[in-house]
């Protein structure tokens, strides 16, 4: 996991560093803000991963390991299929058309979106 954290750490520091260099070369505000915020956002991601994973060892990072040592862990729950993603997507697409063609479409879209959100949450719990 060190590699992942380092990857995002370097990317984040690079963004901030280049942003600072950019400011003192060009004094251009738009690009400076974009670069520095990009660096900060990437650092935040790296920090979150670091906090969640530091001090733990992971079988995928082990140089030599046998499958028997790692057997039995449940990696996660992989659903067989779900209606809610496509319903949510339809809600989003219909809803944004509502911003163009009329509030009634926006309402329909939001309703579908809400329905899908509830559906997804219920699925997760079950």
């Amino acid at each position, binding site marked *: 996991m060190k590699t992942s954290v380092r990857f995002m750490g370097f990317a984040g520091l690079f963004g901030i560093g280049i942003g600072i260099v*950019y400011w003192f070369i060009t004094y*251009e505000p738009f*690009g400076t803000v974009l670069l520095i915020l990009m660096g900060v956002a990437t650092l935040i991601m790296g920090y979150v*991963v670091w906090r969640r994973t530091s001090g733990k060892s992971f079988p995928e990072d082990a140089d030599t390991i046998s*499958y028997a040592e790692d057997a039995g862990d449940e990696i996660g729950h992989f659903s067989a299929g779900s209606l809610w993603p496509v319903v949510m*997507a339809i809600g989003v697409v219909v809803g944004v058309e509502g*911003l163009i063609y009329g509030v009634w479409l926006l309402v329909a879209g939001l309703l579908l979106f809400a329905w899908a959100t509830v559906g997804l949450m219920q699925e997760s719990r079950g």
Partner: protein
Amino acid sequence: MSATVTAPPTEHPKARRLGLIGWLTTTNHKQIGWLYLGTTFVFFLAGGLLALMIRIQLSRPDMSFLSRQEYNQIFTIHGTTMVFLVIAPIGLGLANYFVPLQIGAPDMAFPRMNALGVWLFIGGGLTIYASFLSSHGAASAGWTFYAPLSDSQFSPGAGTDMWIMGILCISTGSILTAVNLMATVFMMRAPGMTMWRMPLFTWNMLITSLLILVAFPPLAGALALLFIDRHFGGHFYTPAFGGSAVLYQHLFWFFGHPEVYIMVLPFFGIVTDVIPVFSRKPIFGYAGFVLASMAIAGLSMAVWAHHMFTTGVIDNPFFSGMSFLIAVPTGIKFFNWIGTMWRGKLTFETPMLWCIGFLLNFLIGGITGVMLASAPIDYNMNNTYFVVAHMHYVLGGGSLFAIFAGIYYWFPKMTGFRLNERIGKWGFWFTFIGFNLTFWPLFVVGLRGMPRRIQSYSPSAGWTDPNTLATIGFFVLLVGVILFAVNLIVSIRTREPAGDNPWDAGTLEWATTSPPPEHNFTWLPPIRSERPVFDWNHRSDAEKAAIGDGHGGSGS
């Protein structure tokens, strides 16, 4: 070594046939990968049809095959299709299918979000094409959509708004998929699959995902501000009220430049997986390649205003310098690929042909890119057909060729049968020759001053012959694409079984059956390098004795 190593399965699970509901509700990464591939193929044909219309219109001077209105919509949607609906999503689709397989995972980290991503992409694409039916027709501000041209005063009509909304949906889908890919790669690798043993397609998809995460939000912001200007009385981009037209360019290109690397890095990864297989050697300089990809990604965030050299309001030397620097890691990759082939034992099945074509084409795109990176030279070439030729060489001659390499390489794994080699080779040659005949003349005509996005030109401009040659070349290219479609049809009819590993490849996806079962693996070889399947298949006699020859035995 390992305590229990069971054998690769000898029985092949039956493929599940999905009905319509099955496809609409699937959350399996392989089927979502198929959804991406199928949809992007349709969009590719649509975008190609638009390109055909453009090439017919420009084949001779003063043609009126297309009116100005039609022409402007067509080149806008052609660019939008190829950028947002074909090249980038194919990368995500192949990543969806193969990243979990390449790292030994049973699926992506968030299967339902994965499905949401593909449906948002499809919905956004349909929205953009539906806009042709709106009252003012489709958007016609160019795929770059500069303000104030794209503002309501100059581009009234719902078509422009539908473009904005479609792109916002697609952007959201891409961001969700990028999150999914990063989480999957970080947290779901099989035991022993350290980051530095991952295949380079997976590495590049990880890096691409980070680029997507930092590049798409500024685009969404740019378009949201535009929509506010258009409909809610905003003046972000109107200078008369204190806004800035240059702001749009900064926001757009801060996205736009990483976007072109999003459209190229996945395909560098494919080529880097394929060339070692057909050279019978490991990739040369694995670590250098990974670091070069990271350098490209990082630098790509700092060069956006090389698309703005002619605005007169940015610091040209900074962006020239950074843009020149990007040439260095890209060059390193070329040496990785050449170093892999060097002293290898090369065979030229269709996937390898496409890789060679990629190398030859992308070099031209790359060298002309370095020329464009020089701001004074860009003063001459910006917005001329020189840039059009450059971008098509890197995205068409580069990414598209690498995509074909990936499809020919992975088709046996995805379906269990092979694509026809003979048709494949004919298709390659028609595409390669047709592509170069179409786009090389555009360099010539760009240097003679032909600007982009013009609907016609006069016979006295001196631009006629290269344009006619380009249109002829396009028809040759078309034959190549048709041959690909023919190959699909013929191969599906013939169903020549491919087996689990027809290419003697090394990465994990080749450890499972063709096609893979639902949760991908019933058996994994030990992972000790970046080519675990190769290591397993070519293990020494001593190792075989220690483990047992892999037929249900257990070792020490």
